[in-house]
């Protein structure tokens, strides 16, 4: 069986700075992987390469066996056409630290946009699906509100509904609770836990160690552009194998 996600020797640089120095990672259907590590370790960049929000210079990323972003033939590597990349991006869903809801659309319209314009769904069908997902994240009554009328936690839940409604094969979460007031964090984490329970494949960059511990099937510790350590959260958090991880965990809070 092919892996859902397969990353091989991923390299990414910003000018002179190499942020990813050869990352390998494989993920099966239904895996929930948390990526932890200090800032600047490359975890967010890795996530953003998977849906081509960042171009990358070396390595391959495959989703369901399909090469993402580039075609490699006869040793030559060429970026795929924008339209093709747009189609591949729809294979994954992404939630951002800053929510990035479209401020001029209601919650329901935020969810509907991709359904209508990318999936070609009729408006009524899209409306029904949007309402279903907003209901799932506990916002049925807020569906006609604009983002500016919602709290941070509510906005983030709409953003997750917007991504999930597209029925992605893989969900990417980029520090989705980092911009939230502490009392709003749990409502968002609960939504992600529910998705995990449904068997959604997810890759999460997070600073919430307790959450990573509870929800992940596997944890990846990024260190200076490489995978420093990876494994089962129960083993990793209790018995870190590398000094770097031990140090990182010591400086992290588990609340």
């Amino acid at each position, binding site marked *: 069986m092919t892996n859902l996600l397969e990353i091989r020797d991923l390299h990414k640089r910003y000018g002179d700075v190499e942020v990813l120095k050869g990352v390998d990672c494989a993920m099966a259907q239904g895996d929930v992987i948390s990526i932890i590590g200090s800032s600047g370790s490359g975890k967010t960049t890795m996530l953003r390469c998977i849906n081509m929000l960042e171009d990358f210079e070396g390595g391959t990323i495959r989703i369901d066996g399909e090469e993402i972003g580039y075609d490699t033939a006869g040793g030559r590597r060429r970026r795929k056409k924008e339209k093709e990349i747009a189609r591949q*991006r729809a294979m994954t869903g992404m939630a951002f630290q800053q929510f*990035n809801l479209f401020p001029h659309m209601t919650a329901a319209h935020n969810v509907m946009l991709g359904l209508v314009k990318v999936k070609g769904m009729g408006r009524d069908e899209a409306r029904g699906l949007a309402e279903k997902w907003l209901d799932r994240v506990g916002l049925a009554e807020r569906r006609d509100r604009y983002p500016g009328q919602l709290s941070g936690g509510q906005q983030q839940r709409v953003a997750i509904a917007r991504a999930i409604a597209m029925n992605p094969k893989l969900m990417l979460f980029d520090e989705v609770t980092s911009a939230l007031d502490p009392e709003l964090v749990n409502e968002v984490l609960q939504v992600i836990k529910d998705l995990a329970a449904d068997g959604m494949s997810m890759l999460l960059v997070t600073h919430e160690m307790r959450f990573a511990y509870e929800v992940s099937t596997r944890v990846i510790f990024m260190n200076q552009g490489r995978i420093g350590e990876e494994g089962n959260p129960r083993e990793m958090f209790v018995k870190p194998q590398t000094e770097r991880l031990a140090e990182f965990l010591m400086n992290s809070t588990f609340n």
Partner: protein
Amino acid sequence: MDIAAFLHVLWLARMPILKGVGVTISISALAIVVGTLVGVGVGLVLTYGKGPLRWLVRGYTDFIRGTPVLVLVLASYYVLGTVGVDLGPFEAGVFALAVFCSSHVGEIVRGALQSIPRGQTEAAKAIGLTFPQTFAYVLGPQALRQMLPAWVNTAAEMVKASTLLSIIGVGELLLRTQELISRTFMSLEFYLFAGLLYFVINYGIERFGRYIERKTSVPS
């Protein structure tokens, strides 16, 4: 000031004044429409264009914005003729104002688009929208709301700038007023009256802009 005498003359002169108002409105409307259409293109190139095309357009806007409108008006009437483009005063004037308007609208469009956070484009990409779709449904609508006040301001500026066309003999409101004054010597009265008419036109534009702003504002 003899009010009764002025009102009498005003009534006699109503047709040239109305014609002047009509010409002023036509000049302004044409300049705004053409200038806006070209300006949106200019703004798009300034925001998303690359290489020589972008430098060219950058040069165009900087040059036009650094030139007095009166010079543009005179140049398009007197200079364009020498290179074989023979425009009448009305056409030349509208051309000059449209060019002027386009450079301003270009900058307004660029400013509005660049003020939209990058996250908006990224979120649109993440759900699989192509760039044209992202522009049509996400960036464009936000930029329009953002640029509306500045655009209304520019439109009002165009009405004021239309008075410069009196220099090249376009019979707009100011020239008609001056002609009346030269016949009646009621300079204070007619200048005040013309000022009032310009105010009414621009006040109308401003109210209309406010109305559109209210209509399109996003609740928060």
